[in-house]
């Protein structure tokens, strides 16, 4: 059995578990409705305005930074795997790559993108 097949088995098991438990919950649990029950929770008072409100732009900045670093982390994984056979030359090339990466971080830091204002 290959790992790919087992992965699919595991994934299907997870889905079956959720579906089965939801069905059991539906069958066993009591059901009652009234007008207030469907209201979104807001400290007990009626909901005011829309729930899909504005949120801080700061989250977006961190998402962009994450994207930049995460993609470059992915590029570093193959290097890390064969580092031993590459030797000093591999290290020098990757140091240059990491230097550019750190430069990006330093720029964001200097610009104040890492501050939460």
């Amino acid at each position: 059995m290959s790992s790919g097949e087992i992965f699919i088995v595991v994934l299907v098991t997870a889905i079956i578990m959720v579906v089965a438990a939801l069905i059991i919950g539906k069958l066993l649990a009591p059901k009652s409705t009234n007008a207030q029950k469907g209201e979104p929770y807001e400290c007990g008072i009626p909901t005011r305005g829309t729930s899909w409100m504005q949120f801080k732009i700061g989250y977006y900045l961190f998402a962009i930074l994450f994207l930049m670093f995460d993609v470059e982390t992915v590029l570093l994984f193959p290097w890390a795997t064969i580092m031993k056979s590459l030797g000093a030359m591999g290290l020098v090339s990757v140091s240059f790559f990491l230097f550019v990466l750190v430069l990006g971080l330093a720029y964001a830091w200097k610009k104040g993108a890492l501050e939460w204002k």
Partner: protein
Amino acid sequence: MLTFSEIISTIHEGLTDALPGWLATTIEYVIIGAALLGLYCVLALILILLERKICARFQCRIGPNRVGPWGLLQSVADMVKILLKEIISIKNTDNILFKTALFLAIAGSFCTFGALQFGDGLACIDFNVGVFYILAISSLGVVGILLAGWSSNNKYTLIGAMRSGAQLISYELSAGLSLMTMVLLSGSLSISDIIAGQGGMNAEGGYNTWYIFQAPTAIIAFIIYLIAGHAETNRGPFDLPEAESELTAGYHTEYSGIQFGFFYLAEYLNMFIIAGIAATVFLGGWQPLQINAGWASGFNELMGQIPSWIWFMGKTFALVLLSLWVRWTFPRLRIDQLLKLEWKILMPISILNLLIMAVWVII
């Protein structure tokens, strides 16, 4: 003594002899799924009870002690009770996304769980890119959390989900970089190879020790991974996404009954998974503790006698206890402190540590 690989191959041969090929394969799949599922649920029950007991002791209480001896059956009772609770449907939720979030949270945690190796020969998913697979599949959880918060039609869940997203993606970088530091040492992404490199004999006739002892800077990577991993499980002091005094329950405020139970399950198992990965990559997985010295041969012999699954579970539960201790000791961070800790402290240190390790490996 029977080893797990012998038991597994006996079952495999017995099934293929007695039944036609396709049926035997199907039965094996069912056995794998059922075994993993059973372990997953039992571990969840144990972890929930453990946390409640330990938290109570930290707060000078006794904790659950009514159901069963010493309250041992408390989490079983809780599980039955949560199944009997009504699933409330909220007005104006995005129902498809609301349900999808559940599946993503559980699938992310369960598929990562399957990649752990619980003992010698007890491996389910063993890709040759194992570490990469773990990082990739465990980030499904954050998609689930974002969807849950977005689709719930509630202000608290939206704020909780946004905070959680910012936190999880930030700390994923440090976690990835510190695992990569260990990949440098092992030269392979496969979990089996990583474990094999931390035990048995090496070419010079000595014992291979755990990776944390193999390089001087490995301890830094280990500590960074523990911090980042702890933050990724959304638990205190990093529990802003569900800060109960500000956001009621964060992204899962509107989930009721068994739906809430799934988020709860995934959260506890993620704690175990993070501890399990740390134990595998840094502390040798199921490999016993061996000391590389002439006088220690008796000790090494003795340690080798302890079954492999006890080693794995022991290390993992030790790390779980550490994470519980941290959770119930430190006060909650603010979001600016949280992001500062990651981007200004952990990130630069992990990049530097990666370079130092690369130099160390070459020398």
